């Protein structure tokens, strides 16, 4: 998920504020956009031409006609003529915001605030920009705007929206009613109240806004609650009422894409683009759809894989086999059979994956899942080639996302974010203790500073985090809560909770019903458990940090005895630390430098068991084990690496050879095929290796095919010649 990392200042003092966002600044629109309604166009333009030049009204008239360039020109002139007027800057900023250029909008709002430090419109503008990125500061800004202008309906509407995004229905209703009290016609207020009813399954509501913007709001909430099909319906209603509401049309396109309806998605997005609505989601989604010709799509049963052509042959067997394993496991565990296919899209370019996750709250940095009753489920994720080796465990991500497929299917997407994420994190380590993310420094700090959220408010940590680190902490906390419930009450209780959520019970109700306690009490007990489980790390974290630096310095100065003494002393203070410069790796290097190979092997084994993912260290362990005659273990280590980084031909070659040696011919064939699938540097040798594996596996025809391929590349390749003669002689007999 595209998490904005912009640093928002403190708003407490209402001092003049100046914010800069991290976004790219697009060029202002160059082409005039003519609306489609001729009568309206004529009226607007007549109005514009009758008005005196360079007035706010003239700018607004052009804006209303979606003639952004002309509106922009008038605003520019107005601001130049009236540099001390903050109102013009704010309206100009809103024009940019409406035209999907929030960076420029933020600059203008900030300029307005420098002229008038509590300008309600400017504060609201900043709040709207922050809300687009789910930044928690949006609520503070909206409150400040209301403090400055208590009758600012739009700020009140925004507060209602933010509360509902946090799944705080009661507060959302309260804020929406306040908006209606300020303005009885408040579409935003009505839309929030109607959406609360619609999300709860009430088809008839007294608050139906009967307005395009209102249905667009409903669409947004269905989407962020992962109910994409219903979201699409509301976006359709929105553009039926106002075909020029391109923000809704664009979201319709984006969400059709999420449901695999690529053709209609393209049409809708292209319409937006051609009519000048070219925000990042529209542009990038169109670009991604255009790039799909580079992908191969293959279906086996319920599994559909969409893989980049250049790596499809290599990755397909690994992904297919893992998908079969995960579906079999989860069908048993969640007690449901998948009825609809699951499409897994694997993107070698992280930017392409990011497009699929654009506009969704939460981290979503590794994978994202969309489910629907009609079209099945869709997972988009990075390819193992999309990230530096060792930084990404693709299989763990796949199991995480597939867990969402099951939890969302089981509950018809009526499950709070914290619970589906928590189960997904829980599943990562349930499949293998070595998988899943480790206890990261931000989590240690959060435990130390008692910053974990109450379970009933945990969604807030995903949707409106107070900092990027809070998302990481929330994933950890949600996962640990599910681990804790599984340990204490058992898997059946987790399943029962899932069903309760599917019946639209809220977290407090579900905790009360299944765990027989109030959620406040649960928080207390959970915290005791987490603190007990992490006490060693939390207590020693500062000391560990200081001493790790010493180990690093000792290693650089080649004081290997010092590395061993200090490394052993601090390793277990923070055993989960397996990132760059881990104690395990320092120790293994030191042991090898002192020619103590058994100790190096022990250390590297600890490293992989703790979840270490550095391919070089894993390959080193495999090599050391092989040299020590422990070939089966050496092979097992490389199998682990295939789940992390299967893009390295040397590794497949080595594993193939180890499997041949161990008599695992099916494994050897798979690995040698992987080498051939990845444009080997020595194709003759690769075909020959595969031929040998086929020969030993009593598949002479396939062996001969491979030998002919080897010899076609290198006719004089003697081992291949000898084997070909041997096989053809046997065949003749």
């Amino acid at each position, binding site marked *: 998920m595209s998490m904005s990392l912009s640093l928002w200042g403190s708003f407490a003092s209402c001092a003049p504020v100046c914010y800069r966002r991290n976004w790219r600044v697009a060029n202002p629109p160059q082409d005039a956009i003519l609306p489609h309604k001729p009568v309206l166009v004529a009226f607007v333009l007549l109005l514009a031409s009758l008005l005196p030049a360079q007035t706010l009204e003239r700018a607004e008239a052009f804006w209303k006609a979606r003639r952004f360039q002309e509106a922009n020109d008038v605003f520019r002139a107005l601001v130049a003529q009236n540099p001390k007027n903050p109102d013009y800057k704010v309206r100009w900023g809103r024009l940019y915001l409406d035209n999907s250029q929030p960076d420029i909008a933020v600059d203008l709002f900030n300029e307005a605030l420098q002229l008038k430090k509590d300008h309600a419109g400017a504060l609201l503008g900043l709040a709207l920009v922050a809300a687009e990125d789910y930044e928690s500061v949006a609520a503070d800004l909206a409150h400040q705007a209301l403090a400055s202008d208590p009758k600012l309906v739009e700020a009140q509407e925004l507060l209602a929206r933010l509360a509902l995004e946090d799944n705080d229905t009661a507060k959302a209703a309260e804020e929406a009613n306040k908006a209606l009290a300020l303005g009885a016609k408040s579409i935003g207020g009505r839309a929030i109240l109607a959406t609360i009813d619609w999300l709860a399954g009430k088809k008839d509501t007294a608050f139906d806004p009967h307005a395009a913007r209102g249905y667009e709001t409903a669409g947004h909430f269905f989407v962020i609650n992962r109910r994409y099909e219903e979201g699409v319906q509301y976006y359709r209603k929105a553009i039926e009422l106002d075909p020029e509401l391109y923000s809704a049309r664009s979201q319709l396109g984006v969400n059709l894409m999420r449901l695999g309806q690529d053709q209609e998605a393209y049409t809708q997005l292209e319409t937006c683009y051609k009519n000048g609505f070219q925000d990042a989601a529209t542009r990038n989604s169109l670009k991604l759809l255009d790039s799909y010709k580079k992908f191969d799509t293959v279906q086996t049963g319920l599994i559909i894989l969409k893989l980049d052509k250049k790596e499809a042959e290599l990755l397909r067997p690994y992904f297919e086999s893992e998908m079969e394993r995960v579906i079999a496991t989860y069908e048993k565990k969640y007690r449901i059979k998948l009825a609809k296919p699951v499409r897994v899209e694997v993107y070698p370019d992280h930017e392409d994956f990011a497009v699929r996750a654009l506009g969704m709250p939460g981290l979503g940095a590794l994978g994202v899942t969309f489910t629907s009753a009609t079209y099945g489920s869709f997972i988009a994720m990075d390819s193992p080639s999309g990230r530096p080796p060792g930084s990404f465990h693709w299989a763990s991500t796949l199991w995480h996302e597939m867990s969402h497929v099951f939890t969302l299917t089981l509950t018809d997407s009526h499950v709070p974010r914290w619970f589906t994420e928590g189960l997904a994190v829980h599943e990562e380590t349930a499949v293998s203790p070595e998988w899943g993310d480790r206890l990261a420094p931000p989590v240690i700090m959060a435990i130390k500073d008692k910053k974990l959220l109450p379970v009933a408010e945990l969604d807030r940590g995903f949707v409106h985090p107070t900092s990027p680190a809070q998302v990481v902490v929330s994933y950890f906390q949600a996962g640990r809560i599910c681990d804790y419930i599984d340990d204490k009450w058992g898997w059946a209780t987790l399943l029962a909770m899932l069903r309760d959520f599917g019946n639209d019970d809220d977290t407090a109700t579900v905790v009360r019903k299944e765990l027989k306690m109030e959620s406040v009490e649960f928080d207390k007990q959970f915290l005791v458990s987490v603190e007990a489980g992490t006490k060693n790390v939390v207590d020693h974290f500062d000391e560990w940090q200081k001493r790790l630096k010493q180990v690093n310095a000792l290693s650089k100065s080649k004081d290997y005895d010092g590395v061993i003494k200090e490394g052993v002393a601090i390793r277990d203070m923070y055993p989960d630390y397996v990132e760059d410069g881990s104690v395990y790796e320092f120790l293994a290097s030191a042991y090898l430098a002192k020619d103590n190979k058994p100790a190096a092997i022990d250390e590297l084994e600890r490293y992989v068991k703790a979840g270490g993912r550095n391919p070089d260290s894993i390959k080193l362990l495999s090599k050391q084990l092989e040299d020590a005659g422990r070939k089966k273990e050496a092979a097992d280590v490389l199998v682990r690496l295939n789940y992390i980084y299967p893009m390295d031909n040397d590794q497949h070659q080595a594993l193939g050879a180890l499997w041949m040696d161990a008599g695992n011919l099916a494994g050897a064939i798979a690995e040698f095929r992987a080498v051939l699938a990845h444009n080997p540097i020595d194709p003759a040798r690769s075909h020959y290796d595969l031929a040998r594996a086929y020969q030993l596996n009593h598949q002479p025809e396939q062996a001969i095919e491979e030998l002919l391929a080897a010899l076609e590349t290198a*006719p*004089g390749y003697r081992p291949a010649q000898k084997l070909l003669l041997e096989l053809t002689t046997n065949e003749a007999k």
Partner: protein
Amino acid sequence: MKLFWLLLLAALSAPATTFYVTISGLGGEPDYEQRFKMWAEDIDSSLKRAGGDSSVVTLVEPTREQIRARFAEIAKQAKPADALVVMLIGHGTFDGVDYKFNIPGPDITGAELGALLDRVPATRQLVVNMTSSSGGSIEALRRPARVVIAATRTGTEKNATVFARYWAEALRDPAADADKNEAISALEAFHYAQRKTADFYESQKRLATEHAVLEDTGKGEGERVPSAENGEGRLAAAFPVVRLGANAAAARDPAKRPLLEKKEQLEQAIDKLKYEKAAMPADAYKKQLTQLLLELARTQEALDK
């Protein structure tokens, strides 16, 4: 064309000496110094391990005078039938006109290196310049009958390179011998190192700052993909850098000459068939290829007895 066949003949027939000169230049900082020296030593040990009739010299951070002296010695010893292989590892610079190889004391220019090589009578020459900005040296180094490989496409690719690491690896990795003729040619080593360099940047998710090129026509700018279309690579394909086996032994046994002739005919027939592959029905191609490969295998078996 005539020159090419003469060189090919020289490469395949008469016993000759190959003079190898590997030079690692100034690192500038301990990390690079260590790296450059390690790669040079890696190449040195591969060449010495390969044996054969060769003279292997490796210079670590030599001065310009030491380089001149070494080439003067080789110029005295070498004959036209011999081969010269020069490999440069380190940092280079290019100011738009002159390429310079960074060494202790005054740097040595591409033009001066070219002149030193010109004085060596060995007809077949290979220069592998693996420094940063090495693309800037092509113009000064190229000439007919000389293969020039540069780690960078132009002199403006200024970042430190990793090509040398993979060139060194190519000389000891049998995988680099793509046609399995027991010799790693300059073209095979180039392809190997080029591919591994690209993989390095790809896997690290780093923008590639070096793009190796090869020039062996004496007049080109250097090509990323040497091919029949651009005329580059033919000389390099016939320039063995390292021999991995004793495949020349059979050539010296008169009793086996008929078998050798048959083998050559079969190899030519296979090449011809592969050339015609696109225009043939797949089944017919496969059938003929299988027959030829089997016959070649039997002939080789007879030769090996």
